[in-house]
């Protein structure tokens, strides 16, 4: 268990940069999630930490030990693969013992630690089975036990839940997170699933095109996204195009004058607005920003409704309302009032 420091890490393949100047300081015990769409460089970063890809530049240190050029087998990182990568010819016990065997742990201690690791993932009693005799979720837990049994400095998770079905995924999510906290092991997880990322991380790194877009807590990313990419990738956002026309004043393409919290100077800008931050109905009247609009479309999604409101021919926003049951719901074609406080709009 260790502090993982990545400094100015980069990876180029010929002319294409896959990871550009990435620096992260991950303290002992932190659960860090690299979040981004496929091709953003998150997996490449993880594989560089594990030692399977040689960086083009920068350094990786584990507790002050420079591992940048070490081969994978000398790094002491525990990697859980997306496909689990269990050894098909070995039993569960033998799979979990593999890392201990490589470290020449004495037989007696090895047995104890294998048992302990399997208990940790609630698979005691499964030691004699072969991987193919286990369900996907069980295989996933064996992979986790195998990666933890030899007490790695850092646990690396490469999309560990993407092969599980939706219901199981939520369970295993909690399980992994609780286990990580119990062991206090420094963990880096890679995922493209924002729910997964938000529910598990201490801290998140949003990546796109090989670059870090934002580093922060769930709340930082959601309430203060650093740019349009983060605003659209983490949660949903309405984007109104327009320009800043005065201090704390945004004018949309359709000519709406909107009060906003931006101190930025004049010029073209985008206003991002979370669908659930917008109020619909009479109570919208007294807010900083209050406009008339027409309901164009309604998606009834059960616990919530998405209502698309046309404010001007150029400006449309989606308003999310919680379905409490029994309340009056807007209808398509109806004129409604929508509004939001100036603090909730983000200008980029």
């Amino acid at each position, binding site marked *: 268990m260790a502090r993982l420091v990545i400094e100015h890490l980069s990876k180029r393949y010929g002319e294409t940069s896959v990871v550009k100047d990435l620096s992260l300081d991950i303290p002992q015990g932190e659960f860090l999630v690299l979040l981004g769409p496929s091709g953003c460089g998150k997996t490449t970063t993880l594989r560089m930490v*594990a*030692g*399977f890809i040689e960086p083009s530049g920068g350094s990786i240190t584990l507790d002050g030990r420079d591992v940048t050029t070490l*081969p*994978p*087998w*000398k*790094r*002491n*990182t*525990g*990697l859980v*693969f997306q*496909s689990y*990568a*269990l*050894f*098909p*010819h070995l039993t569960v016990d033998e799979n979990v013992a*593999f*890392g201990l065997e*490589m*470290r020449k742990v004495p037989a007696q201690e090895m047995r104890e630690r294998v048992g302990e690791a399997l208990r940790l993932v609630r698979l005691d009693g499964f030691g004699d089975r072969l991987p193919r005799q286990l369900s996907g979720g069980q295989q996933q837990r064996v992979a986790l036990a*195998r*990666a933890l049994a*030899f007490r790695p400095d850092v646990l690396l998770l490469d999309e560990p839940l993407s092969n599980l079905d939706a219901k199981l995924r939520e369970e295993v999510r909690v399980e992994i997170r609780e286990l990580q906290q119990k062991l206090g092991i420094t963990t880096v997880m890679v995922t493209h699933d924002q729910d997964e990322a938000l529910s598990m991380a201490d801290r998140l790194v949003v990546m796109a095109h090989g670059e870090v877009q934002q580093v922060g807590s769930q709340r930082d990313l959601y309430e203060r996204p650093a740019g349009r990419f983060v605003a659209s990738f983490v949660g949903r956002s309405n984007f109104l195009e327009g320009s800043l026309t005065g201090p704390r004043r945004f004018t949309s393409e359709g000519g709406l004058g909107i009060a906003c919290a931006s101190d930025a100077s004049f010029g073209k800008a985008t206003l991002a607005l979370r669908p659930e931050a917008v109020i619909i109905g009479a109570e919208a009247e007294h807010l900083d920003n209050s406009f008339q609009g027409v309901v164009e479309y309604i998606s009834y999604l059960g616990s919530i409704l998405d209502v698309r409101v046309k404010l001007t021919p150029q400006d449309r926003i989606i308003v999310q309302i919680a379905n409490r049951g029994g309340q009056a719901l807007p209808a398509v074609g109806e004129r409604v009032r929508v509004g939001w406080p100036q603090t909730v709009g983000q200008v980029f």
Partner: protein
Amino acid sequence: MSGAVIFGRSVGRSNLWRSWRRLALDGAAFVALSFILLPLVFVTWLAFFKQEIPSFPPEGYTLHWFAAILTQKAIIDGFVMSAEVGVAATVIGLALGVPAALGLVRHATRWSGAASTLLLMPLVVPAIVLGTAIYVAQVEAEILVYGLGYEMPVIGTIGGLIAAHALIVIPWVVRLVTASLAGFDRTIEEAAKNLGATPWTTVRRVTLPVIRPGIVAAALFAFVISFSNLELSLFLVGAGRTTLPIAILQYLEWKIDPTIAAASVVQIAVIAAAMLITDRFVKLTQVV
């Protein structure tokens, strides 16, 4: 109502069609299998005939010819020799063929295509031509070594014979091992390295055990190919030291009594036993 009738009839017709196809397939399989098995059946039958000159119908049956094999020193010696050469050629073939297959599959370069064709060449060249070529090459090698001031016999030695057999065994090993590497999930090798295994340990503990069925099948094929080879051995055996196929051939030049059929039955039984034993450990139908 009429729709249902038409529907029913079309179902009936498709069932009929399916059973016809099934019948045709079974028939074709039967013909092919008979074609393969008929010589074996006749040889086996012949081995039990009472009369010395095989003719139909048999005058009676006897186990005499199986006992007669034991009196034929050439056949016994040939059997032992073939077994020795077969085992040695198999070991060498695996030692060279398995790494070759791994290299070809794992490290694709622009030479891989040429290299894999080269490795299959011994299968393409007619065995008799290959035998002549190896014979000439071995003569040249002996002359070359002699010219350097050393005396190392090559022609007619068991070493020379084993080397030649290893050559014809390699294509089979390469092909079978390559096939078993086709569906290999390489992330398990990464997992091994992540857990602390060096590349060599990874090959030893993960790669080879996982492709073991392919290797076992390759070993079996290699042995059978070597054991039953006639053409190469004809050129390369030393005086008075023959392999089983040559011993059988030489015997047939003078006599055609059922002793030879009995020897063949023993040879078939040995190979069949090898296959059955192998199949207990590795399902051959999975790899071949």
